[in-house]
Structures are given as structure tokens and as C-alpha cells.
């Protein structure tokens, strides 16, 4: 159970960055998109986004919308682009390593 939480923690940053890399997103949209695929406490997203902005991986801009409050959009920066690439690489290495290990366990 604890390990599951750790997985999701690591994954949330990757998910958020991957979604922002596709196109500019606003907070609520990100929360909806992430929780479509993984079960996560959406509240954790906003502090994470703040940190991503602080570390220069994202930048924000406000956009008024006809209905509802103005949307704070997140846009990826070149550093964020590079960081995301690195995270994905690490993630895939990790996943394939774990998979190989599991396969071995099944075969033997």
C-alpha cells in the first residue's frame, strides 16, 4: 500500500509534465485528465504545479473565459521539455527493468 503511494507520487509529476507538454493546460483540466487514468488526490496537484513553475519547468499565464473564473494556464519551458524527456527515459528504464524481473520470476 505504501509502495503504491510512492509510485503515484513519482508518477504525478511525470503525468502533469507530459500533459502540459502536449499543450497548455489549466489546473482543473490537468486534475481531470490525470484522475481519468490514475486514482490520485487532486489537491496534491497544485503544490506540485507551483514547484514546477518555481523550478522553471513551466510558466503560467491567465486567460479570461466567457463563463467561470479566469484560467491559469501552464506552459512548458525548454528546461521543462528537457526535464520531461529525462523523466520519461528514467520511467521507461525503471518499468522495463521491473518487467524483466517479473518475467524472470514467472519463467523460473
Amino acid at each position, binding site marked *: *500500500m505504501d509502495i503504491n503511494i510512492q509510485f503515484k507520487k513519482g508518477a504525478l509529476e511525470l503525468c502533469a509534465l507530459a500533459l502540459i507538454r502536449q499543450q497548455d493546460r489549466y489546473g482543473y483540466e490537468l486534475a481531470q485528465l490525470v484522475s481519468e487514468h490514475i486514482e490520485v*488526490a487532486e*489537491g496534491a496537484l497544485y*503544490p*506540485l504545479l*507551483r514547484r514546477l513553475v518555481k*523550478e522553471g519547468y513551466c510558466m503560467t499565464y491567465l486567460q479570461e473565459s466567457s463563463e467561470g473564473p*479566469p*484560467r491559469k494556464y501552464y506552459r512548458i519551458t525548454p528546461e521543462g521539455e528537457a526535464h520531461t524527456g529525462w523523466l520519461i527515459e528514467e520511467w521507461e528504464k525503471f518499468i522495463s527493468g521491473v518487467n524483466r524481473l517479473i518475467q524472470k520470476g514467472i519463467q523460473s
Partner: protein
Amino acid sequence: MKTKDQFLVRLESELAPLPPEEREELMEDYRSHFMFGLQNGKTEEEIAGELGDPREIAQEALHQRSGSSTVNAGGATDPVFWYYGQEPRIDSAAAQGGGKGGGAYPGTYSSAYSGANFGTSPGSRHPEPEARRRSAAVWVCAAAGLFFLNIVMIPVLLALWSAVIGIAAGGVGGVLSPVALLLDYWNTGTYFPAKGFASMSLAGCGILLLILTKLSAGALYKLSANYAGWNIRAMRGRGRAKHD
């Protein structure tokens, strides 16, 4: 009270350790999250449920803020000290978990994820038993203050010590004056009674001076030791540090 307001009020109070502008920015994020959710036809209860426990969110915000830059040995992150009035809570269970499960993401994340959605009970929280650490600015101010104080105080102490050494030298000289008289008699073969009386009174004065030396040296030693101890405590912080 409505769920939304309840959630926001609780979150705001949990975020109290953050600087006001940062707190307000985060609060704005959550307020608009509620508005978007309501617009999409969700109930306040649903939205609050999806967001998770305000306390966990606040923990997350505090951890993310001090984040990757200050991960310490245990994998926990340093708490934020905005003002001294409040001791920030640290989720020690989550911190340990972060340390163990660390790997690629050591301790940067806290337990906001262990919210209701994951079906785990929130970890127990204890205030960190360690003495609070102070910010660099406070430390620099304390160091500067002590520096200027010591520019004056150390010479004063040295002057007092040299006075004590002077008194001690006077005392030793007085006590030894009969010996000097003896040497004088040896060399010259003459003896003046005046010298004898003088050396006797000098020896008496010397004994008094030595007694004075002992008293003043003791007092001054205590004073110096206390002053040095106070300096160390002032640098460590708040005079609350354990000593003696």
C-alpha cells in the same frame, strides 16, 4: 457551513506557515478549482472528496516548497519557518517512507497522496523533536551583533585579566621580598634594619594581594566562562538550547 467553505477555511488555516502571498496564490487555485467543478455539474462534496484532505494538501505544499533543494539525510524536507509563532507539523511516517522508498524521488513528496482516494489512513503526525533551525538571515544578524559586542567585550575581559595578573605579580613580589633581602645581605655583607622592616611589610602586603588575586581570579573566571557560554547559546539560537 457549506462543504466548500469548510474545506477552504480548513486549508487556509493549515497553510498558515506559508508566506501570505504564496498562501493566497494556492488558495486562489483551490477556489477556482471548486468553481470549475461546480460549473461541470459536480457537487461540493464530490470536489472536496477528489481534492483530498486539506491537512495532507498543506503538508504537500510545505514539502514541495522547501522541496528538492533542502532534502536532508533522513529524506525528510526542512520545514518552512515563516514566523516563530507556529511550529510546523511534520509527517514523520511519510518522511520515513520517502526515505526508504526514495530512489529517484527522495523525500520530495509527502503524504498528500495518501488521502482518502487511496483508502489509507493519514499517517500520525508529531512535532519534530529537534530544536528549531533558524533562517540564514537571523543567523547572520546574531553573528553580526555578537561580533560587535565582542569587539568591546573581549578587550574588556582581557584588561580585567591583565589587572588580575598584575595583582598576582605584586603579591608574589611582596612575598618574595625577604628572599631578596637575604640575597642582598649575601652579596654586599651589609644589613640595614630599615630594609628588614620594609621587606616584612612588603611580605604582608604580598599575602593580602595574593588573597585578593585568588578571589578576583575566581570571579573573573566565572564571568568569562558564563560570557563564552552565553555567546555559544546566542549563536545556537534563542537561549533555549540545552546546556550546563
